């Protein structure tokens, strides 16, 4: 090492660094895919069971709303710990990347469901009515009219949700979930190694930016159809 070398262990920590980056990638993409799908389902449920909705059903509507309103505001740092017992049942372990991913998927599902619901509300009820007047079934209307009509804003909503998901991956350390967030904390923040910390931050930011850019491009393409 030369005389100008900055005091950092980033070089030695390279394997751990890339492993942490990989863990973040796995947690975030799994959460986006699974949480995205489940959130879509829950969001559709919230929207469709509303008064005047295609599947209007007051009791179901109340149950879904109460569930979402209860779980969504819980701070993730507490949520991930509280969900440990359930994680043991579902993914077989209460710690590590699987348990953290499980918690993120659940939290993302609740968060995304509201985003989905809000975007579905913007679809003109007249378009739904027209589809009904043409004799389309409710499920056909849901998947070939409702969702496509809301697709542009939905893509933007999912892009927005992804940032929140990456935020959650940084807290996975609570259950030893790993990822760049806890890596930055353990080897950067606690060891006063700014280089390690900023390297982690840069990778996280790049990660979010790539997704954001992709989401914006996709949304524009969808909206321009």
């Amino acid at each position, binding site marked *: 090492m030369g005389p100008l070398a900055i005091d950092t262990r980033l070089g030695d920590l390279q394997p751990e660094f890339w492993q942490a980056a990989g863990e973040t990638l796995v947690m975030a993409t799994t959460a986006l895919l699974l949480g995205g799908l489940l959130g879509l389902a829950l969001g559709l449920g919230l929207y469709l069971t509303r008064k005047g909705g295609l599947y209007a059903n007051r009791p179901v509507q109340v149950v879904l709303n109460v569930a979402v309103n209860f779980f969504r505001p819980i701070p993730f740092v507490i949520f991930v710990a509280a969900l440990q017992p359930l994680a043991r049942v579902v993914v077989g372990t209460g710690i590590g990347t699987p348990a953290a991913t499980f918690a993120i998927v659940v939290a993302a599902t609740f968060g995304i469901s509201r985003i989905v619901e809000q975007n579905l509300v913007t679809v003109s009820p007249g378009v739904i*009515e027209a589809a*009904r*007047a043409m*004799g389309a079934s409710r499920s056909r209307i849901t998947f070939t009219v409702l969702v496509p*009509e809301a697709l542009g804003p939905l893509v933007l909503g999912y892009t927005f949700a992804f940032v929140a998901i990456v935020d959650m991956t940084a807290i996975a350390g609570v259950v030893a979930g790993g990822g760049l967030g806890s890596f930055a904390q353990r080897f950067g923040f606690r060891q006063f190694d700014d280089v390690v910390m900023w390297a982690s931050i840069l990778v996280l930011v790049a990660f979010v930016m790539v997704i954001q850019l992709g989401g914006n491009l996709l949304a524009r393409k969808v909206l321009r*159809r």
Partner: protein
Amino acid sequence: MTEDLAAQLDEPLVELRGVVKEFPGARRGDAAHLAVDGVDLRVEAGEIFAIIGYSGAGKSTLVRLVNALEPVTSGSVVVDGVDVTTLPEKGLRELRRGIGMVFQQFNLMESRTVWGNLAFPLTVAGIPRRDQQQRISELLHFVGLADKAHARVSDLSGGQKQRVGIARALATEPRLLLADEATSALDPDTTRDVLDLLARVNRELGITILLITHEMDVVRRIAHRVAVMEGGKVVEQGRAVDLFADPQHPVTKRFVGTVVDDLPAADVVAALRERHEGRFVRLAFRQQEVRQSEVFATFLRHDVAFELVYGGIEEVQGTTFGNLTLALTGDAAAVDRALAEVRPLVEWTEVA
């Protein structure tokens, strides 16, 4: 034109009997709202039947009962021999495939092109993709949008959107077309074009049209028969020409007054009196055969001078009729004799 069409056909295409639609109050405990209150209506196959009324009269609710987008509270709705009030969901979907619907706000799918919008009802009706092409291109030609097949909906003008809306409604070759304020979002020129298109749908394709509007001019242009709605009830109905010629209900009179100068209003009469003397009578020319010159010649023969002070000649569905208010001057007895003599020729009323 189709004056005696209704008489020719005995089976109505749509028949409403004692139809009631009640909406529950917005909150628990609020009084229920009677949007449609005991309506009886027959729409004959082949005609253009208009329902006119002010906003909130219950027109949209009524038309949505015909394709059962809303269930009735009581009464029966029979379309093409089928009571739609007893149909299960699956039967309803089939029924709706045989009824086209056109909307004020067009209600096209922005996520699809014009082509995609027209393909939707065909796909719903189970028509395979390879057979859709020809039908879609026929439809586009019929509505004059052959060059817009691959346009995005958001790039179309209001009139073009409504043409797509009409093409979409015709896609599955329905017998009945429901049009809820189909021209109310359009400017006057475009309105005329779209009404012409609807008239063509009726004339060339033989499709029965049940049309809703709050504009009497729409009725004047294309409706064969009309029902006037107020407060959920049909307050008057009949042939369009008859309603224009001789409106009975106050609401009908107000609607007719928006396109036809019927009787001058009280303040107009007062103003006319300041400028004209004599006796004011309104002549209602109804029969095509009655020549105005005959009536006027009678006045002249009795030495009664006349001056046209109000009114005009109107045309509804190819029938012209006049509502002319005259100021008659001359010997009082002569005026009486002249009016008695024209009585068999033309209906007249004193304008007080």
